[in-house]
């Protein structure tokens, strides 16, 4: 762990709003686990100063065999605009891997991964790990429209059962997604659910997990300064063991937390 300047191998748009970056980083590729993140020193976008803080980004793919670390990202603002300006051969200063990743119970028959947008970037490596370890995966991928569905191929290649739901087709509302989850549990024997990012998906996952007795985890986001548990800026609220509300650091105790302990917001 530490900060490393890695050469950019590829950095290309994969849809209107999402980009895919591949870095050469052999030692990091071995160290990074699903759910962990890197803290990126984004360069100055053309005509703008460089952003002051680093930017957190999930490990999308870390392939020890190819010595590469990959990110899937949305160009959201100042920092990600700078990221998108990087060209192959440029060097990118990334700090990590950081944080606590997902935990998989090898006794599970099947898990559900439920995500929307770049949340998929966080869950894709979990699906791959599960499939490789013999745990079945049902991936519910939510998006605005069919063109926006990310990671369909990656998930399918890993052996996941892929269910895409979209706003434009009217298949993404909570009731319909709940029905898919119930079916995955009842018919395919899913025993845990993993989600990330959005408040809506968290609430839905918590409710169904409680109802259906599923285990599960959630990967949360919060603005970060240090990424190393020192500054206390990245806290979120959790229900502690004693029922008290407590603050935990997304960068240090997380970004992955027990599903039922995270408070929705």
């Amino acid at each position, binding site marked *: *762990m*530490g*900060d490393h300047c890695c050469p950019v191998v590829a950095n290309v748009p994969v849809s209107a709003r999402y980009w895919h970056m591949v870095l050469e980083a052999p030692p990091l590729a071995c160290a990074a686990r699903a759910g962990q993140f890197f803290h990126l*020193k984004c360069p100055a976008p053309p005509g703008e*100063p460089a*952003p*002051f*803080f*680093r930017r957190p980004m999930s490990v999308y793919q870390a392939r020890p065999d190819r010595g590469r670390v990959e990110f899937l990202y949305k160009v959201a603002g100042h920092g990600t605009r700078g990221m998108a300006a990087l060209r192959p051969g440029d060097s990118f200063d990334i*700090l990590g891997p950081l944080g606590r990743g997902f935990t998989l119970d090898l006794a599970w028959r099947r898990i559900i991964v439920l995500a929307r947008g770049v949340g998929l970037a966080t869950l894709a490596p979990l699906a791959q790990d599960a499939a490789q370890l013999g745990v079945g995966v049902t991936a519910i991928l939510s998006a605005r429209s069919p063109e926006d569905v990310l990671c369909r191929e990656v998930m399918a290649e890993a052996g996941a059962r892929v269910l895409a739901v979209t706003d434009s087709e009217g298949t993404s509302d909570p009731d319909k997604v709940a029905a898919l989850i119930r079916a995955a549990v009842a018919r395919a024997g899913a025993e845990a659910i993993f989600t990330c990012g959005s408040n809506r998906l968290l609430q839905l996952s918590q409710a169904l997990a409680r109802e259906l007795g599923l285990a599960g985890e959630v990967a949360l986001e*919060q*603005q970060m*300064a*240090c*990424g*190393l*548990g*020192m*500054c*206390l*800026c990245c*806290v*979120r609220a959790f229900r502690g063991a004693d029922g008290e509300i407590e*603050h935990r650091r997304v960068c*240090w105790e997380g970004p992955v937390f027990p599903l039922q302990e995270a408070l929705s917001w």
Partner: protein
Amino acid sequence: MVRPDARPPAPAPEGGSLPDAAAVDLSVQLGPMRLANPIMPASGTFSENLARVMDLDRLGAFVAKSIYATPRKGNPTPRVAETREGMLNSIGLPSKGVAHFVAEHLPAYAGLKPPLVVSLSADTVAEFGPAAAEISVPGVGAIEVNISCPNLEADGRAFAQFPDATYAAMSAVRAATSLPIWAKLTPNVADIAAIAQAAEAAGADALVVANTILAMAIDVETRRPRLGNVMGGYSGPAVKPIMLRMAFQCARAVRIPVIGCGGIVTVEDVAEYLIAGCSAVQVGTQTFLEPGAMPRLIDELARWCAARGIGRVRDLVGTVRLDPDPSHAEWLAS
């Protein structure tokens, strides 16, 4: 890192050969304490977690995040915002209390060489004494008294905004412990030298100059303050010229050592604080951007001194030249 106004080093001293970086004596004296080098973290920007990226034994000292005697929550999020050359924070000093610190954090420093400085806050003058006594345990090398935190008896203004509150808080700590005590001042004052003198009079062993500057930013689209707590403390390179001025003013106003703090990024920044009169420096925000900043600065400081024929870092302290430049003589005369 190259500083914008970096200049080539001065020529080597006549006739002598340059010392080797490894031979430069980096140690500094801070009142009763001797530090291996003048580089230490600023409170709230460091924890033992940094061991994951560096060898903690290299630091001049450790300074922990400020703690209160009793547990308290912090401020609402967002707790930080970035600006062009700095950051705002309104973390709000969440703390699990002195007892939790002693039980959970102190053990991590056992066996490490640099002294551990505990930063202590309190809501009222009366709370400072007992808290200082409670934290005066083996393993603690000094207490940094964060009198730049809000004083609930003065409508939330900081102790260090008033000479009398400064004197009262520092005296309370002085009476309660035999450890070295440092006063961490706030820059949100009209006359920092008067505060520095009050802290010295109350028995402070050193001053830390200074904490963050109260500032604000607004998101012009949502029209909300960028910090959940509306206002917060400004730190980073942008504040350095202000902090350096205050450190200089304090160093000239007191006899106890001054520790400079604010905006340090480059080795020239370190040298600037030392030359201005500081015996040591604290590095804060830069560690967030570059976790290895402190060990880098220690290495660079040794090389910087070596290249200029400076054998002992402490010989830099307070060497700012205030004699009129000959080229200014015309002005001074007229």
